[in-house]
């Protein structure tokens, strides 16, 4: 080998080693590049989630986004997000990706209750180990190309839920970065979910408060309106009496007028009393302080005593009372029961046509008695049937102006019936009158 050849060989060798060096650099650069790409991808995921935290207001969208981000940052195969209800008791899946596969692998990895309990105690992500059984089973090796992770979800110290994740790579190749990324993503999402849930709850509370506020305004308006009529009549009647007394006129016509005025005063005072009593009873019922003064009562006699008081007012209506047995007795509050009968009757009278018929009937079985009142009024549309027992409800019809009176009566009747362990309802068709029923247990402890 001459010098030239030797020189050439040297140069080739040096070129070769320099090429090798360059290739090594290239490989390193490639490695750095792929690392950076991966990192960029992960950070994009975190960024997307952070961005969504400020804008997305729907839980569903957050779940979708989370699954999407998990899919692009870790090799997600299947997953399910479980959240506890507000009481921390029931846990249900709010988002699932391929749940059948997840269940299958849950069995393969033998993920049991004890695993979850441990994860919740430790409050951090854990990947379920293969378990000792079948460790050397070559068939199992296939399944171990995947790993099963459980991530507990906490906000502060509160257990919010958990996520089951099937990752498409074996546990030993999952990097610290991937684990911490999973933790960060899920922790952040948990905060978002909790905030959104609280937001929803607040919204609900605000709506409820608004409803209560509206109801209060309704009560104010209705009450003041309804109080005004009897008060006007009372004021007018007493004013006339006052004037007449000054004039000292006592002829027969005046006597008749006095009688009428005094009757007005009485009637209106009774109406006022009823309104006040109902308001009082409703308040007591709502705060749970309404008490009954129960004794054994003959129901037929009780109904008759109500009817007697009413007959002088019911010239225009034909009232018929029927019963299956005159000796039906029940352990009830006599005065309160009378209120129910009176309210239903007065309702029937109000809505009945001139010279119409009102039927009141009493029947009983072994444990309960039922009173029904049928009128010949205009009837009640189906959609109104439930509402008429609500507080201050009154059908918005021209008729109400004629009949006056508040929707209190039926509401009070419902309160008393419920307090006795009974039920109240109405059957009706528009144009064919209405029949009100109430069923009360004869003795304490028997449901109607």
């Amino acid at each position, binding site marked *: 080998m001459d010098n030239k050849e030797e020189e050439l060989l040297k140069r080739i060798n040096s070129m070769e080693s320099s090429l090798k060096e360059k290739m090594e650099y290239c490989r390193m650069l490639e490695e750095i590049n792929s690392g950076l790409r991966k990192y960029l991808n992960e950070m994009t995921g975190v960024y997307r989630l952070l961005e969504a935290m400020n804008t997305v207001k729907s839980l569903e969208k957050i779940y979708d986004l989370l699954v999407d981000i998990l899919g692009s940052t870790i090799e997600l195969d299947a997953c399910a997000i479980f959240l506890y209800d507000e009481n921390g008791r029931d846990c249900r899946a709010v988002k699932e990706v391929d749940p059948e596969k997840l269940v299958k692998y849950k069995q393969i990895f033998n993920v049991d209750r004890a695993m979850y309990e441990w994860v919740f105690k430790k409050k951090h992500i854990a990947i379920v180990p293969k378990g000792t059984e079948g460790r050397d089973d070559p068939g199992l090796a296939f399944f171990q190309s995947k790993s099963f992770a459980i991530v507990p979800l906490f906000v502060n110290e509160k257990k919010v839920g958990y996520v089951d994740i099937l990752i498409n790579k074996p546990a030993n190749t999952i990097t610290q970065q991937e*684990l911490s990324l999973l933790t960060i993503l899920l922790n952040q999402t948990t905060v978002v979910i909790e905030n959104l849930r609280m937001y929803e709850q607040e919204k609900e509370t605000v709506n409820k408060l608004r409803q209560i506020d509206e109801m209060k305004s309704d009560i104010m308006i209705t009450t003041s309106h309804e109080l005004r009529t009897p008060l006007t009549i009372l004021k007018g009647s007493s004013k006339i009496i006052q004037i007449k007394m000054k004039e000292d006129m006592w002829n027969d016509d005046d006597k008749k007028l006095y009688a009428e005025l005094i009757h007005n005063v009485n009637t209106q005072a009774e109406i006022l009393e009823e309104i006040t009593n109902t308001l009082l009873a409703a308040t007591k019922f709502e705060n749970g302080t309404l008490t009954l003064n129960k004794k054994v009562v003959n129901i037929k006699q009780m109904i008759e005593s109500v009817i007697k008081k009413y007959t002088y007012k019911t010239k225009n209506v034909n009232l018929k009372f029927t019963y299956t047995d005159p000796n039906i007795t029940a352990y009830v509050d006599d005065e309160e029961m009378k209120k129910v009968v009176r309210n239903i009757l007065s309702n029937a009278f109000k809505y009945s046509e001139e010279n119409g018929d009102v039927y009141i009937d009493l029947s009983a079985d072994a444990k309960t008695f039922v009173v029904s009142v049928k009128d010949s009024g205009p009837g009640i549309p189906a959609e109104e049937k439930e509402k008429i027992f609500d507080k201050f409800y009154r059908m918005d019809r021209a008729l109400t102006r004629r009949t006056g009176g508040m929707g209190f009566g039926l509401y009070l009747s419902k309160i008393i019936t419920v307090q006795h362990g009974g039920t109240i309802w109405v059957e009706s068709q528009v144009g064919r009158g209405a029949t009100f029923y109430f069923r009360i247990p004869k003795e304490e402890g028997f449901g109607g």
Partner: protein
Amino acid sequence: MGDLKETSKELKDLIQKMDDLPILPNIISKVMKIIDNPYSNADHLTELISMDQSLTVKTLKLANSAYYGFPREIVTVTEAVVVLGFLTVRNLILTSTLYNIFVNESQEEREFDRRKFWKHSVATAICARLLVSATAPGQKEEEEAFTLGILHDVGKVFMDTNYHSQFFEVMRESKKNKNEPAYAIERRILNTDHAEIGSMIIDKWNLPENFVEPIKFHHTPGLASDKYMTNVLHVADIISKFSAITYDASEINARLDREAMGTLKLQEENLRTVVQNLEYEMSNADLFLNS
């Protein structure tokens, strides 16, 4: 052995020479490096640990101990890593390695009871973790607190090994003079204290930099700039000292530094939970004490 009552600079030079310092096995710094790399996985750690058979056995023994209470047997280091987490396994490795250095390798009976010392280190580690969990929970922080607890008195081992007679004097003095804290006596006799030496060892061992301050100032937390971890370590040290005598939280509370407690926002009822849990966890920590 030289007289340590020289200037602090000379002392530092001495330590720089590293001649007397216990050598941290190579494996620990390698483990630390792997844990520091976020793109490492369980395979990387397993590969390293499995080179040391006895370390593998010890790590698995600890991983399966009642202290971690995992419902299934953990059979491989990989499983230990994916179940318990990288940082926990790092602590397991560190704990069993240090146990060898601190307890097993001390040949003869010494005045400085290494077993008692080790028990205190483990109690401080567990307590520090509980304190973090009660005040600012997070797996990373909890594991870091544990490591600091195990390491916080490493300076004492150094003193006992290399400056035995002076350290013996410190202990004798400390028994006589209950009012003067041991670290002050150390300063008087050795011109330095175990906290300072400990922090230098951490530095020499190439352990994470953020371990230096909490260890250096664990008796004087007011001087630290990393207040949180230093306070955690300070309070954990005191609690574990007293809990060797009593697990009565209010009695322990009376002896704690108000300022440190205030900074940690630790109320007496949190403290009660910590002390109760410490009692429970210590009863499960047998393997740590005799690994």
